[in-house]
């Protein structure tokens, strides 16, 4: 299995606005490790670079400095050792749910009936085997997100990267999926990095919560919920839940200044 580390990650975006080159420095020096099998939540004010950090971890975006290691090995670009779940599922609209899951498998070289069997077993895991032949527009938002989860899980990556995966859902579907994610984690012991702006979600899911701000790691909050007690109602009532949630709330209020923008030339980084 695999842990993942971000080592000294910096990222700037060059932008042209009103004829002037502007440099947006999104990440400055972000470093953190996620242990094998751990669930870590990434929190921080909107625009602080959570999505960017996740995309860099996936390999979709190249960092300006620093590097990523998965299972102690330096990686560059995307790999089957990591899977990403996007904020809006991003299913291919012309494919059925099953074909969407098979797409990832085929990219990994698994084809034909083998791919079909694996896809069905992961759709089953997320409770969608009855909807395997439906296209994305025939599915609800929550179901689409489940297909996205099945698609990422099916290639059996060590690390699962999730970008506000339940952010667009109603409270009920969100809670249902959180419970399911915990069940899947208990079964598969994947390493999970999940971006969320929902305090409850961060506390319920994560072993540790990382608070980002000003392009770097600001605070780490250890969550020690009595997890042997899986019922989410009981968990939410536990003093550890309330305590962690309050500490996170405080941390987020201490770190509300978002990104830094420099006004002039390409080298003018604040």
């Amino acid at each position: 299995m695999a842990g993942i580390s971000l080592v000294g990650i910096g990222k700037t975006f060059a932008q042209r606005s009103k004829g002037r080159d502007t440099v947006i420095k999104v990440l400055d020096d972000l470093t953190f490790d996620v242990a094998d099998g751990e669930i870590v939540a990434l929190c921080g004010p909107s625009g602080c670079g959570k999505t960017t950090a996740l995309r860099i971890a996936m390999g979709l975006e190249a960092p300006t400095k620093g590097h990523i290691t998965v299972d102690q090995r330096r990686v560059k670009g995307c790999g089957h050792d990591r899977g990403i779940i996007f904020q809006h599922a991003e299913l291919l609209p012309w494919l059925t749910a099953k074909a969407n899951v098979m797409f990832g498998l085929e990219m990994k070289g698994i084809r034909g009936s083998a791919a079909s069997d694996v896809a069905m077993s992961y759709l089953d895991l997320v409770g969608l085997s009855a909807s395997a032949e439906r296209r994305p527009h025939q599915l609800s938002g929550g179901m689409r997100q489940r297909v996205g989860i099945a698609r990422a899980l099916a290639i059996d990556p060590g690390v699962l990267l999730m970008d506000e995966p339940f952010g667009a859902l109603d409270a009920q579907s969100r809670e249902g999926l959180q419970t399911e994610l915990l069940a899947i984690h208990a079964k598969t012991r994947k390493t999970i990095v999940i971006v969320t702006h929902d305090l409850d979600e961060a506390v319920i899911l994560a072993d540790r919560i990382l608070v980002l701000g000003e392009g770097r790691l600001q605070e780490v909050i250890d969550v020690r919920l009595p997890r042997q007690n899986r019922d989410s109602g009981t968990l939410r009532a536990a003093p550890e839940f309330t305590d962690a949630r309050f500490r996170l709330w405080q941390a987020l209020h201490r770190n509300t200044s978002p990104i830094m923008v420099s006004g002039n030339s390409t080298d003018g980084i604040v």
Partner: protein
Amino acid sequence: MALSNMTSDVEAIEETSSSVGKRVPNWVITTASVSIAVALWEIFGRDVNPIFGSYPSAIFVAFVKLLKSGQFLPAARDSAETLCLGYILSVIVGIPLGLLIGRFRVLEAAFGIYVVAGYAMPLVALVPLLVLWLGLGLSVKVAVIFLMAVFPVCINTWVGVRAVPRSLVDVGRSFVASDAVILRRIIFPAALPYIVAGVRLAIGKAVVAMIIAEFFTAISGLGGIIINSANNFDTATMFVPVVFLMAFACGLDALIGLIERRCMPWQAEIGGREGA
């Protein structure tokens, strides 16, 4: 007419799924529209000097006469073969070209300008030159049709590729798909609605190009019939190929619409129009 045919099945799907109230099917509206247009043409066309214009029944009589004389069918077959050859060639070349230009920045910068310029090319002026290069046979006609039809296909494909959301490409990249696989399995299907639009636009261009080619080259095919009857001031006969070609283009368009709905049913379901 062609456009309403295209959406008729889309509407049918909506109707069965919602089944709220009864709506007049599209083909009925189209048929009524065409009938009224033909009737008006018949009524007012009769008053016009037969050299300056014609009307449906006279055109039909001329059509029957042409059929009986054995001129029409060989000419139509000749033209249709040339048309299909040039048209299919333009689709086969235009789509991959548009995909590549749309996908790769360097190719776009290097070749995009030729496509834009080529689309505006005054082809009529160049046909005599093409005749000098390629002679008067089949190849020059196919070349003219190809040159006229390939650019709308290519430009639409290009625009379609540029419109594909980056987030869908990221899906492919996140699974380590190669450029070729991303192009074939993500870009192409995502751009398909634009591509089909280009392929449809190209039908009309190809028909016009075919007649131009037949005017300039050996007087043959349907273009030959047009020229000969025009020279004899036989306007009714001249209208036969004109009307035939328009109907042929509508038929081809309907065929592509049918293939479109068969091959990409998701598009009709996502993009369906609401209400009447």
